[in-house]
């Protein structure tokens, strides 16, 4: 059994509860144990870093230190949380004075940020630690009848100086996972583009245009569904889909799945068990 600390993303605790629910269902099937970090706090969602860079460093040094205390890597299933916490880690590792200032405060909670735990995405764990062959062997219901559009989202790819797992121009990890689960991945030019989530409340029309573009291509390519490793992309592409497509004049729709649900389906769990019925677009 491989053990990891699991970071609880705010959105997975509220709107996209199905992400963590489906991981809980299949983690043991793949020999994984995720230890939930209930003491962890919001990473700042790609906003705290400019509101207050020092609070941003403190909050995320603490998130990582909680995993380090258990001697575990920190696993994240939201792209933005991943990029945000990894950015903080990079800053802390490169700035000894900041690391010391933060650690002087963390000491009061019996914590220390040392920089020993890696911060990784769930998708990377599946590919690198569990392995595609092992996953393939566990598949009970191959997704062979599905044409699947892989939507990576931004913050698992860019900035590559912080992420560095996939080639941001032509990523492949999600395609490989789809293939291992028996699905048919389609050549989807929007795979590395943006979903518009981060400006939905600030520049709504622009965000909807961005989302509509990604949805339209998948619909034109006759994909059965789009799969994404990020609950924020899911919210933009699923929750805002009707609004985005209406504005773009497209009379169609396409379901959006989380990777955790796609894995669950292939491992034999039902749509109901995985919480897929909670999606806005069914």
């Amino acid at each position, binding site marked *: 059994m491989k053990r990891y600390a699991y970071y609880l993303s705010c959105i997975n605790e509220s709107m996209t509860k199905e992400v963590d629910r489906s991981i809980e269902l299949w983690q043991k099937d793949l020999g994984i144990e995720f230890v939930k970090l209930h003491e962890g706090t919001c990473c700042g969602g790609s906003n705290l870093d400019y*509101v207050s860079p020092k609070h941003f460093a403190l909050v995320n040094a603490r998130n990582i230190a909680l995993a380090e205390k258990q001697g575990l890597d920190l696993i994240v299933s939201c792209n933005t949380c991943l990029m945000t916490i990894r950015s903080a880690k990079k800053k802390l590792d490169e700035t000894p004075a900041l690391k010391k200032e933060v650690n002087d405060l963390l000491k009061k909670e019996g914590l220390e940020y040392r920089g020993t735990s890696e911060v990784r995405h769930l998708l990377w764990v599946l590919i690198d630690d569990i392995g595609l062959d092992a996953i393939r062997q566990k598949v009970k219901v191959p997704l062979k009848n599905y044409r699947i559009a892989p939507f990576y989202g931004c913050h698992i790819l860019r900035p590559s100086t912080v992420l560095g797992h996939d080639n941001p121009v032509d990523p492949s990890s999600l395609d490989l996972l789809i293939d291992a689960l028996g699905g048919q991945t389609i050549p989807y030019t929007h795979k590395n583009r943006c979903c518009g989530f981060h400006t939905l*409340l600030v520049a709504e029309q622009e965000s909807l245009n961005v989302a509509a573009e990604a949805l339209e291509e998948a619909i034109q390519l006759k994909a059965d569904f789009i799969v994404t490793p990020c609950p924020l992309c899911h919210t933009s592409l699923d929750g805002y889909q009707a609004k985005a497509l209406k504005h773009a004049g497209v009379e169609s729709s396409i379901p959006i799945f989380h990777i955790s649900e796609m894995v669950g389906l292939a491992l034999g769990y039902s749509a109901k068990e995985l919480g897929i019925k909670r999606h806005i677009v069914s």
Partner: protein
Amino acid sequence: MTVPIDQHIEQKQDVTFRIFRFNPQVDSKPYFDDYTIPVERGITVLRSLNYIKEHIDASISFRAFCQAGICGSCGMRINGLSQLACTTQVWEVLAKSREPGLIRVEPLRNLPLIKDLIVDMDPLVDKMKHYSNWIDSTMPESSMGKKEFLISEEEFLRYDKATDCILCASCVSECSILRANKEYVSPAVLLKSYRMNVDTRDALHGQRLAELVKDHGVWDCTHCYRCQETCVKSIPIMDAIHGIREDAIELRGLKDTSGSKHAEAFMSDIEKKGKLVEATLPIRTNGVFWTIQNLLPMAVKMIMKHRTPPPPPLVKPAKGIKVFRELFREMTEHVKQDHKSHKK
């Protein structure tokens, strides 16, 4: 060690350049022309284009000048990615190409097309004018030319990287928001604005910042990092964008615009609960009226799917929030001290 002669022979291959063509005076729609030429290792895309223009088809139009990655003229999309033709090696592009032996060459996106690979840079220049992308010196005119206007090394390092920008517009071409709305300020202009705003010799800081926080300005960036990823000079453009936002919050406060209110919500929620209170985020960002007008139909669907975020009292604080809050507030004191010493 000597390299066998046959390896030298293999350092040459036929490459097909599929070039975007459009002459609005003649063509009803764009098309592609294929040109296959032998290319040796070490040859750039620009040299290949020059060869094609010189030997095969003189009608192809593109901009180029310095051939050394300095002037920024030859920005174009090479196999889908915006970059400089003069610093892009054909063999490196081929190594990553999905179609063996083929390189697609297209004009930059998000700027009006003039002909073939040439785009109109005027909209970008107009935005640079609109956002005052120059230094208006604080030195009295009477002193100019009589004494040096010195800056510290520490200050220079804040915008050193930003001065590397050669205005090639690769970032403009890759920008997600500009693609959605051509009115958007654009990453290159934000970078220049940041560079001017952190320069203490400049007198336009407040005026420029006031323009940057308006609609289509700095808050519309969606953090996709495409600009930074494509930058031919590896400039951390997002740091500049975040730098403008940090400055805006410091000088104009957290209640200034919907963008700053949105950002403020993260700060206050983390301090109070350690978790984001998503249910009230739209109201705190845009007010009740906007929220009802824009999000009500979606909220109804979400209620039906049991997908609504919990109301504030039901958002469970992170475990151990009391100690965390103490640390957070202590850091607030550190930041206040930093600001005081910064002002001194």
